[in-house]
């Protein structure tokens, strides 16, 4: 059997972080959580992951700043797929995230946790996940 996929979950809201952590673990993923942008960046740099789920509005470093840094040349996480897991739907921010190398984004308030897990399964199946449309 394959070893479980490793996911870095960067989310500053305790309730939401704990919720997704529970769901991802229940579905067999190896989850590491980070409590803010800085923590997320440090964890992304310390070891390799199969996927990074990144919130945008966070203290210390925003998701956008984390994304910019981890996609730099020479970064250990340069080729790790990054999906934004956010409630920020401002088109300009999403566009910037895609420019910086994000592969997709999921709107937390629009998806139930189990739907997010389904999306993540799809990502690993190399299927194009259904993208949310900004409202």
């Amino acid at each position, binding site marked *: 059997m394959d070893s479980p996929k490793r996911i870095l979950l960067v989310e500053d809201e*305790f309730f939401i972080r704990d919720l997704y952590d529970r769901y991802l673990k229940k579905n067999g993923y190896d989850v590491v959580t980070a409590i803010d942008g800085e923590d997320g960046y440090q964890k992304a740099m310390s070891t390799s992951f199969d996927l990074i789920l990144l919130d945008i509005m966070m203290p210390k470093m925003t998701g956008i700043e984390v994304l910019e840094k981890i996609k730099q040349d020479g970064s250990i996480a340069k080729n790790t797929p990054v999906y934004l897991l956010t409630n920020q739907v401002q088109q300009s921010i999403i566009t910037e995230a895609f420019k910086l190398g994000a592969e997709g984004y999921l709107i937390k308030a629009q998806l*139930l946790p189990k739907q997010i897990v389904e999306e993540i399964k799809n990502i690993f199946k190399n299927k194009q996940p259904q993208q949310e449309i900004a409202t």
Partner: protein
Amino acid sequence: MVATNLKLNSVHLPDISQELYKKNKEINETLAQTKLLAEQLSQEKKKIEIILENIIDIVIFTDENEKILLINKAFEREFELSKKSVINKPLSQIISFIDDQKILSLTELDSIIESKLHDTKVTKLIKISGNKNIYGTVGISVVANDQNKKRTILTIHNKTKEHELENMKLDFVSMAAHELRTPITSIRGYASLMSEELDEHAHLPIQDWKTLIGRISTSSEQLLALVENLLNVTKIEKGIMSLACKVEKWDQVVNESLEMFKESASAKKLILELKNPDSTLVAYVDKIRIEEVLNNLLSNAITYSTPNNTVTIQIKKDTNWIHTSIKDNGPGIAKSAQKHLFEKFFRVAGPLEQGSKGNGLGLYISKSIVEMHGGKISIDSDEGQGATVTFTVPCQKL
């Protein structure tokens, strides 16, 4: 012959002199009329000049080569440029009309019309970049002179303030939507988790159920508080917020608020410490409103505190006032930002702002409510040293 001639002359002289007199009179009348007309014209010119100079809108005349012939005071004021520095210069050297990051020629400007007033075409809102940038609509009329040379009259209606206000409103709506989504995500997520647990007949310990329900409950409280804040701002702005003050046991009011934040404090391993409680203290307040102040201040203190710390609530009394202070151990607030803290929509710049949960309303609302009670609110903070917010409420009817 001579006699005849003389006679002739004598016959015609009075006629000629009469004619001359008549002509002279006519000329004088015409002169007077011309003078009057010239005076009227000069008065009209003055009127137009006064109108042009005092009109709020910017007015620019250009010649057939798009060189500036004339500008008014509004132009000088809005772009902070003197007449001397722009007359006879090509318009494009002085200002650019920009739509969607593209600089427009006068012909292109003429094509982005929103409406038409007689011979003036009015553009949609665009950016006008000169010595200073402004946002406005531009009116364009083309007039031909006797030599059929086309001159352009441009009027710019400055809408920078409206544009900024509109942007602020849009940012606010987008921010409010984002803030509302966070507790909604929690509520939906935890409700769905509980439902799935039941479907799967999982045997979660009773304590876990309590935790999950507690999270739904806390998130609903956050959602409610946010909606209240949004409504309160509207009430304050419209001047329709009123108070229903009564004598309340201050200890009890504070404790009720503290109770609401137990869950979110323990999630961050924060201790909420109430120093020197005094059950004999009474305040003359609108309990619902003043609880909003306490909730906003406690919510801030918890949000900005680093985990494993203490949020201290201290109550003191002097002759007529109760002073309540809430102290956190967060990153503190720079002195430069402190004076703006209680302004509407103000959020602290820097790392705090980028991730802060605030919407720039809590402190504005708190200040309004405290002042309606006759009290005062202030902040004491040093960067890196946490922040203490203190407010006063009256002990009795003022």
